[in-house]
């Protein structure tokens, strides 16, 4: 990989990789370190990459693998059962999200259990399709779709908690309502 290629790849993907890393670690220094380690591996092992189109996917996958390696090493991430959420399709007024900044969204995202947070972050960063996410996380496509759906619910629930004092800003539409509409 020559100098220009590397610079270009840093320019294209570094920010999203950092955001993804932050969503995994919730710490700025660890996110930076994780991103740096990923690029180090690109420099040392990226020569094996023949298809330039796969660089992005390779970077996200590598970053995630490095993170899992760290996690296994530290063994201090106990598995937490997700709290049950009502199966509803909460809909926010777009203005609700408009009122938040990136840090607030990230903070709410970090409140979600990792197995939902990771695919959801990748989904919102828009770099990878659900099939790529499934490959990266080594999960069946159906599981990824399920986790994306549940993750969205959880994120909106977290946001709604923050706006609990102004509930009129949030208009949840339950499935039952959709079904009633359908039967009309």
């Amino acid at each position, binding site marked *: 990989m020559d100098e220009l290629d590397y610079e270009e790849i840093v320019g294209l993907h570094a920010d999203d990789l950092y955001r993804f890393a932050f969503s995994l670690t919730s710490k700025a220094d660890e996110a930076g370190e994780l991103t740096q380690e990923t690029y180090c591996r690109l420099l040392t092992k990226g020569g094996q990459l023949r298809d330039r189109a796969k660089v992005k996917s390779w970077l996200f996958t590598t970053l995630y693998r490095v993170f899992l390696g760290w996690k296994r090493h530290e063994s201090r991430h106990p598995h937490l059962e997700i709290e049950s959420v009502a199966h509803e399709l909460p809909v926010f007024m777009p203005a609700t999200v408009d009122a938040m900044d990136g840090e607030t*969204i990230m903070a709410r995202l970090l409140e979600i259990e990792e197995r939902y947070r990771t695919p959801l972050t990748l989904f919102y960063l828009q770099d990878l399709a659900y099939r790529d996410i499934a490959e990266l996380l080594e999960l069946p496509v159906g599981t990824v779709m399920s986790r994306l759906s549940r993750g969205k619910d959880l994120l*909106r629930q977290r946001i709604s908690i923050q706006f609990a004092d102004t509930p009129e800003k949030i208009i949840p539409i339950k499935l039952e309502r959709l079904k009633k509409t359908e039967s009309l």
Partner: protein
Amino acid sequence: MNRDEATYILRAYRVDGQDANDPQFRKALELVRLDPELARWFAEEQAVDIRVAHKLRAFPVPSDLKSQLLAVRKIVTLPAWWQRRGWQVAAAAGVALLVTISVLFIRLATPADFACGQSSFAQYRDTMADFAGNKLWRLDLNSPDVKEVRRWLTQKDAPGDLQLPAGLDGRPSVGCRVLNWGGKKVALVCFELANHEKAHLLVIDRDALSDAPAESPQFAQTGKIATLSWSRDGKTYVLACKGGTQSELLGLL
């Protein structure tokens, strides 16, 4: 596909339209076009997703992140080209191929040269036995006519005036080859035995060997090759036969 299935699938649809050609989404999007209520839900879902995605991508990144990553380039010691896995595999394969070709070339080369230095007869015998037992070489001359074999050997300054043991005399030959032991020519004459095994008679001037055997045949086993060795009329003979026993070899004398 019903509305529930469509909503479930469309929750994985990226807002920038990158997934529009995915067959799974295409069906769900078709339903969106036909179902106004689903279309309204989808529009709201997308409106929220667009904003969440936008906000997430606005999450601040350290201002020095990129410069640090570019600096990594200067710090990381890249493995030299010969240390990289691809090169290592290719180099190993190349070396293996070269060695194989070289070995084959050496085996097939004419004549076969063996450097002996101050070697003993035992070394000579074992080297010849090892050579005779190896199939990766060819005869210089293929001929069932022993007289022709003798003539050819003589022309090549190899001991063509050899005395065949009684058990081989009168038997058609397969052919012959000239080897070189420390500058001295060795005549190798090949015979086929009744059991289709080959018997190789190797003949060298006795003077070439400091501790050549006496006239009385000596039996030795070198790996799978059995040998009988003796000297007569200024020449030293080694009869080598794969899988042969002492009595079988003695039966050829």
